[in-house]
């Protein structure tokens, strides 16, 4: 009597929109209850942790608002290898790994559409 093996389902593939490591997974919650540096040293005053979290939230919100403000504006990017380019900012991906830009001015010409790798960017500036 031979047996058949069926598959319950196929393995889940990568999420095209993010890098994974679900913070709601059992393992993440158990091993990383908080990633706030103040509390990883010693469990200090919860007030300190609260303050640090508030500061982080404020900075994060401010950063996200700058991305919104930058949309369709000319931005100067200062990058590694002494690269200075200017382009019209379009959007960022969810993990801030790539910036979508248009009319990228490079020493070898203007690139109509381009992706800038964020880790290559040292700083960028634009006029509000």
């Amino acid at each position, binding site marked *: *009597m*031979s*047996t*058949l*093996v*069926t*598959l*319950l*389902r*196929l*393995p*889940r*593939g*990568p*999420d095209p929109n993010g*890098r*994974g*490591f*679900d*913070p709601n*997974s*059992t*393992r*993440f919650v*158990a*091993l*990383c209850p908080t*990633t706030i540096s103040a509390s990883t040293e010693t469990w200090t005053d919860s007030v300190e942790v609260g303050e640090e979290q508030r500061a982080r939230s404020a900075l994060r919100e401010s950063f996200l608002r700058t991305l919104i403000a930058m949309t369709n504006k000319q931005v100067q990017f200062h990058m590694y290898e002494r690269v200075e380019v200017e382009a019209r900012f379009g959007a960022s991906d969810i*993990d801030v*790994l790539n910036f979508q830009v248009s009319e990228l001015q490079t020493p070898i010409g203007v690139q109509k559409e381009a992706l800038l790798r964020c*880790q290559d960017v040292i700083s960028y500036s634009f006029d509000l």
Partner: protein
Amino acid sequence: MAMRQTPLTCSGHTRPVVDLAFSGITPYGYFLISACKDGKPMLRQGDTGDWIGTFLGHKGAVWGATLNNEATKAATAAADFTAKVWDAVTGDEVLTLAHKHIVKSVNFTQDSSCLLTGGNDKIIRIYDLNKPEAEPQEITGHTSAIKKALWCNNDTQILSAADDKTVRLWDRNSTEVVKQLSFDMSVSSMEYIPDGEVLVITYGKTIAFYNALSLDMIKTVDAPASIHSASLHPDKDFFVAGGDDFKLYKFDYGTKEELESYKGHFGPVHCVRFSPDGELYASGSEDGTLRLWQTAVGKTYGLWKCVLPVIGSRELEGKAANGGVGFGDDQ
């Protein structure tokens, strides 16, 4: 007597998968990391192949990847001349270790305190992860690019395989070579089994087994095709191998007999490893996929479910419902 098997295919990589490694068994199961030429190593749940996350940061092909026993840390070796250490729970990059050439191999000690690296600059390096800014200890001697460097003998010694056609055993403290094996051709892969101190080496069409402490040869087995990687089952009853002909071969370790061969990959098989519980083995291929294969085909495990043939199945359902005879591993 070929048994058909349904491997689980894990897609997601866009270039060849060149290395893979399992973690130990943790309270959350065991995990699998894959190194890929697309520069984006991935972490997967070991028994299902479900994608957990991708380690983003390398700027070149990733040639080697490893997890620590608890699967809390990952390390990767890449063509961008760096080895990186990652938090395997959050996916965050923890450390970047700059090298002077392509890094090919990374390996944690049992307690995850030190990282061994080896690559095209022919130097083995030992990094103390508690003092990452300190200069690494260097072990020189190989005359060609290092393919693999592994801790052995309770992390007191190091085994390395290089394109200079040698496998060398080094003492960690003296950094001197203790013993050396020479081959007629480059070693394609190396696996170290701490329990029993077995070293599995592949070269040409041969899979060779050595005592890891003495480097005495135990046995060699020849496969029908050029083999890129082999892995010995934890119970040392089987070993599996894969290579140029795209197939996975399963051999009896005791009798050296070829038991099965499985087709499935669309390109040469670059790496193959048994899971820590021995229930499955994973293969990575030029075709960009990983495949998980059952050791005992027909067993209910992970995403595989054993289904009995349908003869009067209604009766069987009835029996099960009445708390009658259980069939196989069905719950």
